[in-house]
């Protein structure tokens, strides 16, 4: 698979949070299992769920949304061939059928995928959903005026590279066949065992051709899910959804859809959102947020208040913050220098800078610490929790830097606790103990992003992060370490400019696997093998903590999204 563009990836991260965004869970996935099973055996049906967000639900068109697992709020309106399992924790990182009867049937080398639609699927107007509508929905995502989605379909479907969408090209995509109203077949140009994950994205939503209004479709997309759009103001700033009477729970095992109405209000400041959720007054008692985490200071306040602490949902989204090296820049061409930095790093300082142990977990692996990614624990340069400056000095001496080393660390000036000055200064302080003087180069966020993703301007030593489009090792490792994905003129994500034949071959081999568990194990092993090269220093995996209102029940937070799933929430 290939990496999305810079913007696309950012959007991905954003939409992941939007999507995922749903909210907050009770006390962490572990507790939630018990909770979901126990306390909330009969969730209340009805009422209005308010969603308080900072980012609007822009471009609410299934062709244009860039989501992980179909998104959080989008998933209330758009059903897809497959979807994410709406369960707490690890189980929630699985892909399950949605419109289709299964997660797809591959041919022997995973280049042809066949799906069959369930029976009795209807749109909000009562008309039947057909496989041709799914095909049409995918085709219109190729139209230039409806851009925004992930690039996978264009890369993977046979003959899709130059396709301009159904408005210009009436013949459509020959790579997608619909032999009958309930069957759809995809022809891929290479083996892709993870195609079921891709089919969770909103581009796999059926769109009735007769109702397609082009760029205006986002005002009122025809719902296939439990809710339909009642109003959409200012491009998703306020989105009101109401129950879709033609949606049938019998065909949908995933969405619970307890409330009658969903009121999404965006454009709010994050501190206002957290303030309102903690006050939980009036309509805010039945409110959640799908995109706003608690910050360190807010967490400090919340954790001292039992009532508030009980209303915090904890989630893990597959994401890694790391130090990237460009081995083309001296002195980082020397593995010993890179290893010395790995040893010297004080992860406890970095974790504190990111918000403390409740908001970040120290990382020694590039892959997120989740089973679905194939996480295989390793720590090739063990410096312990607070670093091993002595070992680092030893390595530096061997590398000919016995009397110290001065390097420049590039970071962004965004206030995100990820690639921000707080993290950079923590690293600066830790490396000082190993005799490494770190100069900080803080760049404005856009400038920073342009620089680090361009092979010509890529700095030698910088802060980076990566999140996958779905919870698997493929979209996590391939864009960063596949040598054929080095982009010479354009957005490049292979920071280490690694082009290793054995790594490339293993990536190809794993993509052929359709047994996702077997694939996960091999991604984990590959991660460990790449880790020995010390091209990155994993720093931490973020943890999401989000508040929800007093009357919010049935909180489910999967490891796929890390945030409360709005399709599961009940309000009193």
């Amino acid at each position, binding site marked *: 698979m290939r990496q999305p563009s810079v913007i696309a990836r950012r959007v991905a991260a954003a939409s992941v949070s939007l999507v995922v965004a749903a909210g907050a869970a009770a006390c962490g996935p572990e507790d939630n299992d018990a909770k979901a099973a126990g306390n909330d055996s009969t969730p209340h049906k009805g009422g209005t769920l308010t969603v308080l967000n900072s980012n609007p639900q822009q471009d609410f068109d299934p062709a244009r949304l860039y989501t992980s697992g179909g998104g959080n709020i989008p998933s209330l309106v758009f059903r897809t061939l497959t979807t994410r399992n709406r369960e707490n924790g690890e189980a929630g990182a699985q892909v399950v059928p949605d419109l289709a009867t299964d997660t797809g049937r591959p041919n022997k080398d995973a280049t042809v995928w066949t799906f069959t639609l369930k029976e009795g699927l209807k749109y909000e107007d009562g008309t039947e959903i057909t496989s041709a509508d799914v095909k049409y929905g995918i085709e219109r995502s190729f139209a230039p005026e409806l851009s925004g989605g992930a690039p996978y379909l264009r890369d993977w479907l046979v003959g899709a590279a130059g396709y301009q969408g159904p408005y210009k090209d009436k013949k459509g995509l020959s790579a997608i066949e619909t032999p009958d109203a309930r069957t759809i077949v995809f022809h891929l140009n290479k083996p892709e065992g993870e195609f079921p994950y891709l089919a969770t994205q909103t581009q796999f939503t059926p769109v009735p051709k007769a109702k397609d209004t082009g760029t205006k479709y986002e005002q009122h997309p025809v719902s296939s899910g439990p809710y339909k759009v009642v109003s959409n103001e200012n491009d998703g700033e306020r989105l009101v959804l109401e129950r879709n009477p033609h949606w049938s729970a019998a065909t949908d095992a995933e969405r619970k859809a307890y409330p009658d109405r969903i009121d999404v209000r965006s454009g709010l400041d994050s501190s206002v959102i957290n303030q309102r959720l903690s006050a939980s007054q009036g309509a805010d008692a039945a409110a959640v947020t799908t995109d706003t985490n608690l910050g360190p*200071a807010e967490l*400090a306040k919340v954790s001292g208040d039992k009532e508030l602490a009980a209303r915090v949902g904890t989630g893990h989204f597959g994401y890694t913050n790391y130090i990237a090296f460009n081995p083309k820049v001296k002195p980082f061409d020397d593995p010993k220098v890179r290893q010395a930095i790995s040893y010297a790093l004080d992860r406890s300082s970095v974790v504190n800078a990111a918000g403390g142990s409740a908001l970040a977990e120290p990382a020694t692996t590039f892959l997120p610490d989740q089973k679905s990614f194939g996480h295989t624990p390793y720590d090739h340069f063990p410096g312990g929790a607070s670093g091993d400056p002595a070992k680092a000095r030893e390595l530096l001496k061997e590398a000919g830097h016995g009397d110290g080393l001065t390097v420049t660390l590039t970071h962004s000036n965004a206030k995100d606790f990820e690639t921000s000055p707080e993290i950079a200064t923590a690293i600066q302080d830790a490396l000082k103990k190993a005799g490494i003087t770190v100069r900080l180069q803080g760049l404005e966020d856009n400038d920073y992003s342009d620089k680090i993703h361009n092979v010509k301007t890529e700095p030698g030593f910088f802060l980076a992060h990566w999140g996958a489009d779905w919870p698997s090792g493929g979209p996590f490792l391939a864009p960063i370490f596949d040598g054929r994905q080095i982009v010479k003129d354009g957005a490049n994500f292979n920071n280490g400019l690694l082009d290793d034949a054995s790594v490339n071959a293993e990536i190809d081999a794993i993509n052929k696997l359709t047994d996702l568990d077997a694939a996960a194990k091999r991604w984990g092993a590959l991660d460990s093998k790449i880790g020995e090269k010390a091209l990155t220093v994993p720093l931490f995996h973020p943890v999401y903590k989000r508040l929800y209102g007093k009357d919010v029940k049935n909180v489910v937070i999967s490891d796929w999204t890390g945030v409360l799933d709005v399709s599961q929430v009940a309000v009193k």
Partner: protein
Amino acid sequence: MSEAVLAVETPGADAPGVSGARQFWRRLRTRRAALVAASVVALLVLVALTAPLLTALEGQDPTTYHPSLVDSARGGVPVGSFGGIGADHWLGVEPQTGRDLFARLVYGARVSLGVALAATVVQLVLGVAVGLAAGLGNRWVDQLLTRVADIFVAMPLMIVALALLAVVPTSFPRPVLVALVVGLVSGWATLAKLVRAQTLTLKEADYVAAARLSGWGTLRIARRELLPGLAAPVITFAAILVPTNISVEAALSFLGVGVRPPTPSWGQMLTSANVWYQAAPQYLLLPAGALFVTVLALTVLGDGVRTALDPRAASRLRVGTGRKGGRS
């Protein structure tokens, strides 16, 4: 610092000589508030100058992290009461990092005061030079310089400063840059207009005419005859500029374009502290308090200086029969 306010204390042609300076000190001494303010300012300057000594005395430095002094599980709030205040950390530690707040505060004073004073020097030099040139130059020079000054008076300081600070490469030493930007963009134009007006008045005085008749050149007249007469309004204006500049530096650092981490400045401390007002209030109160005390002291001192330099204002304040308005 509008011109109207300043016009009151332009003391005409009675240029303070040696006896004028003595008179000034005598008047200033009688104003208790000004004296207290002067001592506070002196103390702050002393603290800034001796920051390395003071932190050495405490046994800390402004950049070392102390992860063990913050509660990682609670967002990094300092361990212990009142933000971790104790014998080792006199004012507690910074949330998330555990850096010593006393050290950061006194080192922050260096940046905040240093940048403000440097910017003031730039403003004074530029303002006096442009004002004198406009007042003494021919019609064209006067017109041109006055218009340029008008443009700078109209310029929105924060926006221009933000833009300038964003485009200059990061390799340029940041505190110097901030001082330059603040000095070059703000303050000097108002001063230049003031100096020009005063110069035009002084130019007509008999002693200046006498000097000209005896064949002195313009530069010599400016230096020997005009500058002493300008001293009072310029000093008064400077006393108002310093606290303004401190606030501007704090605001720029607050907006993230001031000094760069890990260098502490009060504005930068306020930025990172503002979200902590509930969980760790002392973190916010320290830089805010320091800023408040400094600006207040400088303002009171400035007011004292103004009054001491202007006998009319002084007598008006005392007797309550002050005349309104002034010349300009």
